[in-house]
């Protein structure tokens, strides 16, 4: 348990249009750990994730990466932070005019300054890792949702991020395509990728997460190990939220997952 802390989020406050969207949110992530954000939609999960890489800058509070607080005013520090923090979006946000290969390669060339051959090799490696080596020449319009999301994972991983932020990576997918993306995420967790993920896939993430953070109205109202929060008699918000979700989905998938990951 004494892995070093990679990402520390302290007292984040964010107001949009006079409304407090994030209200004093704090947590930290250790190397190789996965924190999962759960909560009703509108709770502030997406906003919290985009505060971490300053896509929407927090009004106050501190983000520290590797023990160093980021100065949100410094353009240079922001660009450096974003290079080290990967982000996966709910609706993929692939670059529509670029092939799968170029989607992964473009930032390697423009941001990391790799030469074209090195960038190509690296991009192909990442596409192979998500099982899309044979789709490298296809454009987003030619890919399924699950494939698009896997390209976006490859695009983020190619930058060698220290942390990966995932904002409901499977919520925009047809049910039959969710599995392929979850498999990629599980592989990443097994490889020790440090991640923060907002998701409604509670039983899936219970098996991988080190901690659940339950958010409501801009605050983390509950936190703890999945097994603890999901225990049938825990009386936790997480448990009742999960029960409600699985009732809506009609799949009864709200039990404590088996053994935690090795």
């Amino acid at each position, binding site marked *: 348990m004494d892995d070093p802390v990679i990402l520390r989020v302290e007292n984040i406050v964010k107001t949009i249009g006079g409304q407090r969207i994030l209200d004093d949110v704090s947590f930290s992530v250790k190397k190789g750990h996965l924190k999962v954000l759960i909560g009703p939609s509108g709770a502030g999960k997406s906003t919290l994730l*985009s505060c971490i*890489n300053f*896509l929407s800058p927090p009004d106050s509070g501190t983000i520290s990466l590797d023990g160093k607080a980021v100065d949100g005013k410094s353009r240079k520090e922001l*660009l*450096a932070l*974003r*290079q080290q*923090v*990967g*982000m996966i*979006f709910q*609706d993929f*946000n*692939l*670059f*529509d*005019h670029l092939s799968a290969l170029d989607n992964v390669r*473009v*930032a390697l060339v*423009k*941001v990391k300054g790799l030469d074209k051959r090195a960038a190509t090799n690296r991009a192909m490696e990442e596409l192979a890792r998500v099982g899309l080596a044979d789709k490298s020449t*296809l*454009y*987003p*319009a*030619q890919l399924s949702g699950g494939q698009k999301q896997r390209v*976006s994972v490859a*695009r*983020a991983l190619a*930058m060698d991020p220290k942390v990966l932020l995932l904002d409901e990576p499977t919520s925009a997918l047809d049910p039959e395509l969710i599995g392929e993306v979850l498999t990629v995420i599980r592989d990443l967790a097994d490889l020790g990728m440090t991640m923060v993920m907002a998701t409604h896939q509670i039983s899936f993430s219970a098996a991988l997460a080190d901690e659940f953070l339950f958010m409501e109205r801009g605050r983390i109202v509950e936190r703890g190990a999945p097994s603890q929060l999901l225990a049938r008699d825990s009386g936790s918000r997480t448990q009742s939220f999960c029960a409600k979700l699985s009732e809506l989905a009609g799949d009864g998938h709200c039990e404590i997952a088996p053994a935690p990951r090795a």
Partner: protein
Amino acid sequence: MDGFIAFAWERIIPTLDAGLWTSILLIVPASLFGVAIGVSVGALRVYGPRPVVKTLDAYVSLFRGTPLVVQLYFWYFALPYVRIGDFALVLSPMWAAIVGFALCSGAYQSEYIRGGLLSIKRGQLRAAQALGMTPFQSVTSVVLPQAFRRALPGCGNEIIYLIKYSSLASIITVSDLTGMGRSLAKSSFRNTEVFVVVGLYYLALVTIASFLLKIAEKKLEIPGFESKRE
């Protein structure tokens, strides 16, 4: 028919060739300025500060909402009377036409550019920034290549319109294709033959321009960005 061929060969074609050159000297700069205005105005209308957006929206409404003939009359006949202190700007017929066409075309072009820019989903910009791209890099490698492809068919059509409405320059005394044709028709009394050939000249110009645009579109075509030109 023999008479027509000889007349066309000896009189119409030499006369119109002179006019053709004038028309080209009008169309090329007017469409280049038009595109330049369209790109700057279109981009400012999307990304500019509010007062600039309002001003440019007004410009576009004004130039799209008034007849081009009236605009040309203004630049050629009215502008010399608009005095600022002791200074009045007098444009030659040629420059009045270029200014008139460029400003009008630019208003339309800006609509296509604006549409192209707006069609790029904000999420892609966020993704570019999340990868550590600077705003400049995000715009040049993500927004512009897409906006350009989306705007190209509309911008191309506008250039083709410009070729055709350039014939209005003749009403402010420019000796372009139409102007030269009209003088010849008047002096030779052979309206039909002359105007048929004038029409064919424009048709040739439009055909060449469409062909070049098609090539450009084909070169830039990628899945998801198929152009839909009629």
